[in-house]
């Protein structure tokens, strides 16, 4: 069975790769494109560690086939900082000690950015529900929620 040739945009750059039908977008990102910042925690969409944006939608890259990425625009954690400037969420996560082991962090940052893009002023509860699909076992979420709220405040210019 011939492999599929896929052309897509990843973090603004055009990319091409070959994949099997059964290969997930997560596998393509990690194994074909060597973008290992996106993590696999479960492979079944239950932990959110593999969160990426596809055409502006937050998705689990373990639940999407790589072949479906044809023509799509994908954003991963590797594209979040601009040059040497961290995204405010990235900075606030470090400042608030919102990460410990860091395995869930890329997925949570991608998810949090998508929240703030549609809701610049979320409540604590809105942050918690939006991030419910991202498991973190180290922090108890306290500092993550604080960091997201603080980043939102800063991004609103407050």
């Amino acid at each position, binding site marked *: *069975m011939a492999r*599929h040739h896929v052309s897509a945009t990843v973090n603004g750059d055009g990319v091409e790769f070959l994949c*099997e*039908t*059964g290969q*997930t977008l997560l596998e393509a990102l990690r194994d074909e494109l060597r973008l290992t910042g996106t993590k696999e925690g479960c*492979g*079944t*969409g*239950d932990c*959110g560690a593999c*969160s990426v944006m*596809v055409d502006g*939608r*937050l*998705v*689990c890259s*373990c*639940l*999407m*086939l790589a*072949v*479906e990425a044809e023509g799509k625009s994908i954003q991963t954690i590797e594209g979040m900082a601009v040059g040497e400037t961290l995204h405010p969420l990235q900075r606030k996560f470090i400042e608030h000690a919102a990460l410990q082991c860091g395995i869930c962090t890329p997925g949570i940052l991608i*998810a949090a950015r*998508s929240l703030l893009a549609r809701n610049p002023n979320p409540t604590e509860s809105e942050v918690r*529900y*939006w991030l*419910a*699909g*991202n498991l973190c076992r180290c922090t108890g979420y306290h500092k993550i929620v604080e960091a997201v709220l603080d980043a939102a405040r800063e991004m609103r210019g407050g």
Partner: protein
Amino acid sequence: MRYEAPKTLEQAIALLSGANGQARVLAGGTDLLIQMRSGRAEPELLVDIKAIPEMRSIVAETGGYRVGAAVTCMELIENEAFAQAWPGIVDGVRLIGSIQVKGRATMGGNLCNASPAADSVPALIAAGAVVCIAGAQGRREALIEEFVAGPGKTTLASGELVVSFLLPLRAPHSGDAYLRFTPRTEMDIAVVGAAVNLTLDDTGVCSRARVSLGAVAERALLVPEAAAALIGTRVDEAALKRLAAAASAACRPIDDKRGTKDFRIKVAGVMAQRAAEIATERARRPS
């Protein structure tokens, strides 16, 4: 395993019909990919239906709505007019997994996966929604409550696929709601789900009602006895109590890792009652 992404329904049907039952429809993939990963599904052909415009649109039709089977949950949630008309369906759709999962998952997939615990199905049943099916023999329609045959089984014939859902025109003073019980606030499969859709007359008396329960039988149930408890009442405490009793009585659940039989029976009544309260409050809202 082959992958095709046809641009028309006809092409999709041709692909499915020619695959000897070895094809699977790929919409959001949030159930199918997990089945493939675990080896429970080993299709020879995947037919990705997301390139078919009809499957991706939400349109007003005969005063109601037609929702394409491949419309994602997030697209449906974000459609304010739809959410206004059918808040109970959106209640159900909101509970299908995380934001990430809802970015891909579809109502069509939720129905065709045929889980007794599917969150959008009880609300669709309560709404009296009709599912539009297409196959080599043409199109047909079916009631949601008759679509699922049992756990993992639908009444789709080989080569058929779900195209869209038709939600009927809403009478004034109508409201619907779906509630489920899960141990966690999010990221769980319903242990019990209950949907209530009702219409009040000008005096506030319930004139029509449909009640549906999920995860309490081999498939989501339409429970006319529970609806009857509401019809002709002002959805007062006594009526709600009768509703709860009727809902519990209709359950024929199993014990499993997610909940016990007794628990499901009891909580089905509680969820039905609470859903009815929300639906009534929505119906009373000036539209």
